């Protein structure tokens, strides 16, 4: 396990990850930088302080499984996997280019730490539930971690999985909701209001916690208070575009890739 990373370490890794995301997105004119920035802290917390995974032994059957159900935030996943040693510099250079290696939504590649192919919302939690059930039947100790978006919770399939995991008390399943409150065409509260979100999960038989999704102390506290009886969810209050002032809470950055000037301005902020 990659534990022992202090909050301070995690903060500096997060900063490097954001710069890497900025580079990836700017260079390839890829979408979803805002959705990627909101997930940075949870990904860093998981990969550097929680998941039992190793780039030296990526196929180890005892490894923890992480599923990025909001596959559109792949640039964040790739940046973190590179920091953690699963992806090489060359892999990142081959993101979204002609003849490249990494697509704009993750394609399963266990050797590179990409557990499941995602990109269509509403799939990851069911797959995770299947893995959690398999681990229970096999009496294995590994955990399954799934990161969902808030807009994704509009999908009926998510609630099928919620009912299933609650009923079967899949306590080895941990879901996170990146609750940045903005989905593809606007604010979640205006499109399909999700609140009271933690109560909804609780009523489906889950142990629900909330945390500031950009605060490592709060994320670690939640990870240290998981239920061993029920499936777990941590609802992460986050900010879309977090880290670059002019991107924060702006729907535009669900789509837009920074131009050269915006790139320079964003980099300046991240280097402060």
């Amino acid at each position: 396990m990659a534990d022992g990373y202090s909050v301070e370490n995690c903060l500096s890794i997060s900063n490097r990850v954001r710069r890497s995301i900025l580079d990836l997105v700017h260079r390839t004119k890829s979408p979803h930088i805002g959705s990627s920035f909101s997930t940075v802290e949870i990904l860093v917390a998981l990969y550097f302080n929680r998941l039992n995974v190793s780039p030296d032994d990526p196929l180890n059957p005892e490894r923890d499984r992480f599923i990025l159900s909001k596959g559109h935030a792949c640039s964040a996943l790739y940046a973190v996997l590179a920091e953690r040693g699963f992806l090489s510099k060359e892999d990142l250079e081959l993101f979204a280019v002609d003849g490249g290696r990494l697509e704009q939504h993750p394609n399963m590649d266990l050797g590179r730490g990409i557990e499941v192919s995602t990109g269509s919302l509403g799939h990851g939690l069911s797959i995770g539930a299947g893995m959690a059930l398999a681990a229970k039947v096999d009496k294995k100790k590994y955990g399954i971690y799934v990161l969902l978006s808030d807009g994704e919770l509009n999908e009926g399939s998510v609630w099928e999985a919620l009912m299933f995991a609650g009923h079967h008390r899949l306590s080895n399943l941990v879901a996170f909701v990146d609750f940045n409150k903005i989905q593809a065409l606007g604010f979640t509260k205006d499109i399909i209001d999700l609140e009271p979100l933690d109560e909804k999960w609780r009523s489906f038989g889950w142990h629900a916690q909330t945390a500031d999704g950009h605060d490592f102390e709060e994320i670690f506290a939640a990870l240290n208070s998981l239920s061993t009886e029920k499936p777990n969810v941590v609802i992460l209050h986050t900010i879309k575009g977090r880290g670059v002032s002019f991107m924060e809470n702006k729907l535009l950055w669900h789509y837009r890739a920074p131009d050269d000037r915006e790139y320079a301005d964003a980099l300046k902020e991240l280097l402060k």
Partner: protein
Amino acid sequence: MRNSVIERITKEAGKKKDIFLITGDAGFGVLDNYKKSFPERFLNLGVAEQNMIGMASGLGLSGFKVFVYNIVPFVLYRCYEQVRNDICYQNVPVTLIGIGSGVTYSPQGVTHYSVEDIALARTLPNLVILSPSDPIEAVKCAEYAIKSKDPVYIRIAKSGEPVIHTGRVKDITRPVVLNEGEGVAVLFHGSVSTEVVSALKGVDRRPKAVSVPMLQPMDFSSLEKELKAIHTIITVEEHFVEGGLGSIIAEWIVSERLDYRLIKLGIKNEFIHKITNNAGMRSHYGISSEGIKGAIEKAYGNG
């Protein structure tokens, strides 16, 4: 045929500890033996097909050999994108057992028919499509699926179908010849085989009859060998006439510039409003023994 398939899987589950059977609240009475024998490797997921397929993928990715049992609309239609992304895209060895092929469930209505499933399944790379013509082929299909490292879709009608093969069926990955004949060949798959068998009894000249249980990937080179002395192919299926076996053969003839005349029998591509039983429905759409007989006579120039 469903019982033959489930019994074969149940037998295998005693030896292979990685077999897992799931259902979406379907299969009353059919799955009891399996469930009793292997309760820890059986699960009813409830009426939630998207989760059922996603779950099957998660189990498969964790090393289980998963069989999913439901009626066709609920292993393929409701959850098509899960089948596409979660199973076929990642090439997870999950077997979908779809019951109620064609208009087996007449007159339950269009919601319960599966007349376009092969057309849909054919669009999915990695997916093997099997449509056995009788219980002997069904067992062979189950055996194929047990060994397969790819996802498989097995299309079956219900229970009680008669055996049509008099000899042994060695290999369902190739066309299975039921009887030899000259000039005309009838290619068919699935439970409508009984109509073909009965049509063959009533014609003056007997065509070659070939069951084609594996529709994807299709073994065209074996098929071409079987069709050497043939000028006219008649395809018979309880499926839309467009999109199934008839279309597979038509595309093959065109792309290989082959010199066959093709007569495609199947269900007209329309939402079915006719209310009748399975036999009546076959008769209505020209795939009863009478309709097939007519096509054979026409093919020999007597019609």
